[in-house]
């Protein structure tokens, strides 16, 4: 039994994957709570898909993926704003059209016969391919994201509670929303390499959604979300090691398993009763 716990740690790739998912889990758990409370789950998933062409182009020309993803996010955001302003479409329709188009363009590039092998991993992630440099970048970006979240915690809480009152308290609500979306983008940028473009939303939304079902306090919610993300991440990587399944997909299945357990706990606690707003 003990051997089965320690054996995967003797492999550098698995060890690095465990460290990477621990870092991603802590950051995603914290920012995921704001994604859920600000009802940004759709935006977070859209951001992840929208930056895909940027990732693919960066991989094709040999530029850093982080840089490609950052450019991809900015282009996607600009196109969504333009589509909303220049047409009569609602913002969610504009997002759906722009993001699907960008994602399709990215897939077209990634799956073309001339693309180098391995580029398809951008779709599903490659946790086991995390290098020491990737972990260092994820840790640095994650620390910065957590630092800004700590600084803005009370203002985020006030605006999420009631944005009009937040404005009346002197908080610049528009600026705060832009900062939050920038932090979500940064988190996606470092998480997408491990979990892939199609699966990254799971670690951003799943743990926070699970935590919300079992607590009605913000700090415990963040701690539970981070613990769920890390535990499910580690469980997924162990499952991947022993069952020889894809690491990213195994982590996502473990995350959703945690959500179902939280939902069952919530039912038992009577927390899934219809909520007033």
């Amino acid at each position, binding site marked *: 039994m003990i051997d089965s716990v320690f054996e995967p740690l003797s492999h550098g790739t698995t060890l690095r994957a465990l460290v990477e998912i621990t870092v991603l889990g802590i950051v995603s758990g914290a920012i995921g709570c704001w994604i859920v*409370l600000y009802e940004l789950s759709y935006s977070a998933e859209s951001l992840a898909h929208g930056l895909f062409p940027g990732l693919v182009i960066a991989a094709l020309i040999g530029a850093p993926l982080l840089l490609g993803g950052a450019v991809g996010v900015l282009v996607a955001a600009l196109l969504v704003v333009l589509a909303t302003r220049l047409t009569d479409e609602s913002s969610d329709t504009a997002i759906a059209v722009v993001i699907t188009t960008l994602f399709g363009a990215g897939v077209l590039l990634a799956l073309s016969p001339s693309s180098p092998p391995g580029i398809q991993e951008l779709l599903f992630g490659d946790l086991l391919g995390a290098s020491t440099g990737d972990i260092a970048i994820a840790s640095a970006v994650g620390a910065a994201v957590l630092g800004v979240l700590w*600084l803005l*915690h*009370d*203002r985020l*809480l*006030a605006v*999420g*509670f*009631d944005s*009009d*009152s937040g*404005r*009346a*308290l*002197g*908080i610049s609500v528009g600026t705060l929303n832009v900062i939050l979306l920038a932090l979500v983008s940064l988190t996606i940028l470092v998480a997408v390499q491990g979990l892939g473009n199609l699966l990254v939303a799971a670690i951003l939304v799943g743990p926070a959604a699970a935590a*919300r079902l079992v*607590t*009605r*306090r*913000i700090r415990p*919610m963040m701690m539970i979300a981070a613990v769920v993300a890390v535990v499910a991440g580690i469980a997924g990587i162990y499952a991947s090691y022993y069952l020889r399944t894809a690491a990213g997909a195994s982590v996502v299945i473990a995350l959703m398993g945690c959500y179902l357990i939280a939902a069952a706990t919530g039912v038992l606690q009577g927390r899934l009763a219809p*909520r*007033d*707003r």
Partner: protein
Amino acid sequence: MAAVPGRSFAVADSFATGYDGRVVLSGVDFTIGPGMKVGLLGPNGGGKTTLFRALLGQIRPLAGSLKVDATTATVPQSDRSRLDYPVTCLDVATMGALARLPWWRRPGRRDRAKALEGLETVGLADRAKDSFGDLSGGQRQRVLIARALTAEAELLLLDEPYTGLDSASAARLDRLIEDLAARGCSVMIATHDVDQTRAWDRVLCLNERQIAFGEPAESLSREVLEATYGGHIVEIPGQPGQAVMPAHHCDHEHDHEDGH
């Protein structure tokens, strides 16, 4: 708070304001001094919220002037709050400190003590650690007033605070408003209940422009109410000139102080 003789918290002089250069409220003239209770009457869309936003400094004058010499805070309708949001009453009351702090500062121990003091003032210190969503409508309203007290507000803007309150909760809110005025705070209360405003110091009637401002006994004539509400007025039998609003203008659902 010590009242400063001659000090005015808010002075409007031929004030007009609106959005995107379009005037939605005009001809506003009033002076609000310390400790004054002001009833704000007007139909939906008549300019009450616009006036609140102007007093908070969120929108600029398009004509005339509005001088505010008081820390101002708004107390929104409690049914607009998110009841499933993960905050305690103390968390909500502490939010008021953000109005006083620069953006890089977080509320500290002193701010939380101030927030607890605010909860004591509104009679809810014992519910400080309870979830905001677990309180009744009247209690939530009082927590939002505690938030304004944490902001050290001198001028409180209450947006239809009696909506949804049963008579016991409404009486408790009446006493709290009296307490606030006695401490030197001025309170402007948006309401549809004309009779209620008769007990306050001043009444301000708006319908896209100022219809009247003054003591209720002098200002609340049938003509003023007709101009304010567009003719939907019922005269009180045996009291010529006295009028009340028809029921649909102050239709509220009721909840109970102890109900969750």
